[in-house]
């Protein structure tokens, strides 16, 4: 092939196929699943880790008195209380932190710049990166809840309470995707460490009532818990799954409303923060740097 022909070949404008958002997200999910499935041993170890952490609380529940739970308006069942707390906290933590890790890995391997210089915009990129993480998280969540059921947790399920729990879970996912996007923006700019995911992890463990009802905290610490969507999600989910209440209950409705407000306020902010970090990193030409 002559030089002129090569130049002509490279200069030719090939019309791009406009791939729909759903198709792109599907491609992200298939890609991530293939990577995930390559490390089957880790899939097994991860699930073992999640299940043993739930099982540990079976033994802790043998030395606990449920008075504080009853005072907080839940049924007197510490095991079910902690199974819900640990399972959902682990669910959102793994989904949110793995999004930051994915961004970091893409930077490390140099694939992020490649993807973002294609016609895939950053919103689709974020959505694509998040969906599989939440799907894997859901798999662990279900496994943890089933494990809880096996070791003696009792869920009070009616059609109404199950549907309400589903609505709250959807709100939990949406509100934590927002946190994940904030964390992704931070990691894009800072490269090392992720203060958002870090703060989110330890503050929620301490103040969102994962292992104890919030009433045990001094009032000024309860205020900190009120800033996190996990606090409302856990309260609502426990009322549904332990007490058998549904969305007609004022407490659950209040929790759902607060989650909706959180999403409405924080979604545009987190997208804006990510866009700022993304644009600044692009300007510096540091998308592929780590």
């Amino acid at each position, binding site marked *: 092939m002559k030089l002129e022909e090569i130049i002509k070949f490279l200069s030719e404008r090939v019309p791009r196929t406009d791939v729909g958002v759903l198709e792109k997200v599907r491609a992200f999910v298939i890609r991530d699943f293939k990577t995930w499935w390559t*490390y089957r*041993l*880790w899939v097994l*170890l991860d699930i*073992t*880790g999640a299940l*043993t*952490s739930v*099982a*540990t*609380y079976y*033994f*802790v529940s*043998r*030395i*606990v*008195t*449920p*008075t*504080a*739970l009853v005072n907080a308006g839940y049924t007197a069942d*510490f095991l079910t209380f902690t199974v819900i707390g640990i399972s959902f906290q682990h669910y959102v933590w793994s989904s949110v932190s793995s999004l930051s890790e994915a961004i970091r890995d893409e930077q*490390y391997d140099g694939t992020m710049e490649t993807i973002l210089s294609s016609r895939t915009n950053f919103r689709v990129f974020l959505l694509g990166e998040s969906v599989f993480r939440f799907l894997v998280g859901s798999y662990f969540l279900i496994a943890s809840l089933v494990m809880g059921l096996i070791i003696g947790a009792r869920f009070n399920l009616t059609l109404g309470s199950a549907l309400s729990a589903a609505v709250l879970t959807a709100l939990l996912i949406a509100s934590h995707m927002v946190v994940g996007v904030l964390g992704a923006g931070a990691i894009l700019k800072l490269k*090392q*460490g992720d*203060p958002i995911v*870090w*703060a989110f*992890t*330890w*503050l929620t*463990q*301490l103040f969102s009532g994962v*292992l*104890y009802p919030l009433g*045990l*905290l001094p009032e000024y610490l309860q205020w900190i818990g009120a800033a996190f969507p996990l606090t409302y999600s856990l309260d609502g989910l426990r009322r549904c799954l332990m007490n058998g209440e549904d969305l007609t209950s004022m407490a659950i409705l209040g929790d759902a409303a607060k989650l909706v407000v959180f999403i409405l306020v924080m979604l545009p902010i987190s997208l804006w923060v990510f866009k700022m970090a993304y644009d600044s990193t692009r300007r510096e030409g540091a998308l592929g740097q780590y």
Partner: protein
Amino acid sequence: MKRADIVGIFKKDKPRVKSTLRQFYGVVWANIKIMFAYKSWMIMDLLSTVASVVMYYFVGLQVDPLTLSQSGWGTSYLAFSLIGVATSNYLWSCLTRLSHSIQHEIRGGTLETIAVTPVNMLTFFIGQTVRGYLVSLIFLIGVFVVGIAGLGVQFVTTPSSLMATLVVFILMLISNQGLGLVAAGIIMVHKRGDPVAFMVASMNEFLAGVLYPLEMLKVFPLLQMISMIFPYTYALDGMRRALILGASLADAGVLADVVMLSAFSVLLAPIGFVVLNWGYRTIRVNGSTSSY
């Protein structure tokens, strides 16, 4: 500076450090300097360690002191769980630090560079391990300071109980380090993840009685038997006997724990070195010291 001077500097044969002790010091000091470069990350780690203690303070408010005391561990759940949480976190970070740093060096392509220098690789690995112990010690001390000074936990701190704690603690590190070396050897070959350390940490947390009295496993004989194959189970029992009950090394329970930990140390440490050596040889033969 003239070009000839620069060439002269590069040509100069600088005497290399041959002393193992100096090399060891160099590895430890270099890594500590790197760690202190990430100050904000250190503060964040310290705060989350503190949070983990405070969390069990609130869990402890729900524990029935009578039920706990029937297991023979006094009435303070915070004292009970503090020893478990602090030492299991310490052990976890010590066990994983060597394998994580090897993983990091492989990914960054620096393990190969170190391997071609006259630095003795055994010195390098031991240096990385000791650095892990020292760094994690900051967090361990932080946890105990928060527990004792901040949350009012009371331990028996007679000279004999502290001596027993120290002996059991050192044996805990030696016996578990064998597993850490196995993890590092495997990670060099398989590159991704740290399955051995992860499995040991999960099982330790679940079966060694970090958060509940081990007596509760009596109703599940199989689980109780499995818990006996982890050295940490004996370490935790020995440290709790010393710090909560005030037992000394002469106490039959502590003595039994010391014997078991010594046996684990003798058994696991050589296995650890064999696997580490195997891992290093394998990646050198395969030429994969910098591929990941």
